[in-house]
């Protein structure tokens, strides 16, 4: 926390070294977050790139009110959501149905985004409606409070908690092999994974 405050202080005073320090410190977490939200590593890296470009432009006027990690995670989530909405407009799909990589979601490469060991989870995450996936990832991966997610998604805290519960139920069913939820999940060649942990770039 203090290290971040100092980095921001230096960044606001023109230190490129501080800016590089911030990027190096959080880049992997942010790429992971974006990839979990978008289920696409290339799109995820574009999001992180765009977030840092905006961040560079905010120099001098940037004020850190909470944690820097939380701020950057929020930027990534907002940017990812915008990407999803843009895709939605392009494909005239509903937000809940939309999956940017739906066309090849059964491909082994896609399921190997997070490596073979986590391919079941990765695939199950893909099956969640975007809003539910966003709540789950922001809460469970980034440690964001429901209240903050609610403000970000502009919905009530009850709605956010409901989305979290639904997401958990679905994931649990899929990961435990519930036939209703796991039918589609069971079909792809689970063992075909490959590129464990490396992240697949299309």
């Amino acid at each position, binding site marked *: 926390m203090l290290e971040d405050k100092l980095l921001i202080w230096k960044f606001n*005073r*023109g*230190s490129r070294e501080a800016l590089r320090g911030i990027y190096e410190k959080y*880049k992997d977490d942010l790429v992971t977050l974006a*990839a979990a939200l978008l289920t696409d590593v290339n799109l995820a*890296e574009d999001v992180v790139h765009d977030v840092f470009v905006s961040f560079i432009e905010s120099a001098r006027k940037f004020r850190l009110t909470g944690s820097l*990690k939380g701020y950057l995670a929020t930027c990534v989530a907002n940017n990812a959501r915008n990407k999803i909405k843009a895709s939605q407009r392009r494909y005239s799909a509903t937000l809940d149905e939309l999956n940017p990589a739906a066309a090849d979601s059964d491909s082994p490469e896609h399921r190997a985004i997070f490596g073979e060991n986590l391919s079941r989870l990765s695939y199950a995450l893909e099956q969640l409606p975007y809003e539910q996936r966003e709540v789950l990832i922001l809460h469970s*991966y980034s440690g964001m409070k429901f209240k903050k997610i609610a403000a970000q998604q502009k919905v009530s805290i009850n709605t956010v908690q409901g989305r979290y519960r639904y997401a*958990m139920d679905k994931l649990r069913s899929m990961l435990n092999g519930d036939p209703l939820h796991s039918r589609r999940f069971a079909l792809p060649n689970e063992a075909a994974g490959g590129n464990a942990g490396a992240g697949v770039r299309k």
Partner: protein
Amino acid sequence: MRPADNINQLIRKLKLKASADLDKRVHDKITRAPAKLNRKESALTKPNIWSNIMKNPMTKLAAAAAIIIAALIGFYTIGSPTPAFAEIVRPFLTARTATFKMSMNVEGAPPQNFDCMYAEPIRMRQISKEQDAVVISDLMKGTIVTLVPAQKRAYVIEMENMPEDQDQSGFNMFAHIRNHILDAQESEDASVEFLGERKINGLTTIGYHVSKPGIDMTIWADPETKLPVQLTNTTGPATYTISDIVFDVELDDALFSLEIPDDYIVHTRQVDASEPTEDDLVNLFRIWAEHMDGNLPSTFEMSVITEFMQYQRKKMKDQGIELTEESVLELQDIIQEINRGGMFVQALLAESDWHYAGKDVKFGDADTAIFWYRPQGSATYRVIYGDLHVADVAPENLPN
């Protein structure tokens, strides 16, 4: 383990590395933004005492008056401008290492003096003159080692569950000061007041007082070198004064080593450093009642800890129990648990409207509220009763 815990654990295992391509793209952007970033570099040296003072509307009139009076009595000498606050505190923010002397005065306790060495990121070596002990802390590793050479003993504290974004500077005075300065510079409700001149050990210095809720700090500096000479920081009942400050000294990493000599007896304790919760507060009341014969704290001030310790010592004496090293360590563990409850209250915002009403309430009284507060954004209050059950209560139903 709850079923959700398994999924959450799995999600936390997700890990990707940014590609070399992304690294290149972002670093290129950073490199290609020199003009914009360079412009800001001037802000490092730009005096900002005026803006600091004027941030707080309460100080506007006072500042104007002070400057008029200063001009009248020739306080500012034309041609010799007073160094700005930002210039004076800058070494605290930019130094990679520092050495200084620190004296600590706590109400009701003898003063303590330390020779200190600081190294980034959050390392400290303190030599206690009174207790012949060396305290080495590395807060990135969450470890504090106290060496007592005369007894060949080492006391190790390992902080567990520390949240990534938690401010750990409370354990490191240099980092603590750095944190205060950053807060004062960035915060809207902080004010920096120019104090004028004062002689310290024959040297004419100029001073600034920094204040903000939770910050009460005075810095005296040499107007020629613009380097800090003395700094006083008050936190609750404790006042720390640091002096003989030297920045960016060559310090051997071995000075901050957490390794303990082989011939030392080691006592290791784990301390829960996670964010305190309401449960910790309830636990405070339970522990208090158990160790204070069914009574609850008389007040919610820091001084009750001394009261607690004195009571325990008296109880042990009355029972003919000797104060051994083990019993002291046990008491320290209890104090730490109590502290977590205190930290929960300390972290409550002013708008939480917290109240303590447990004085003279007997432990177990289910009808009497002893503590209440309003969680952020909540319409109702959380009320803790004498039997330690907790309920949500509408504001109109709170005790008078």
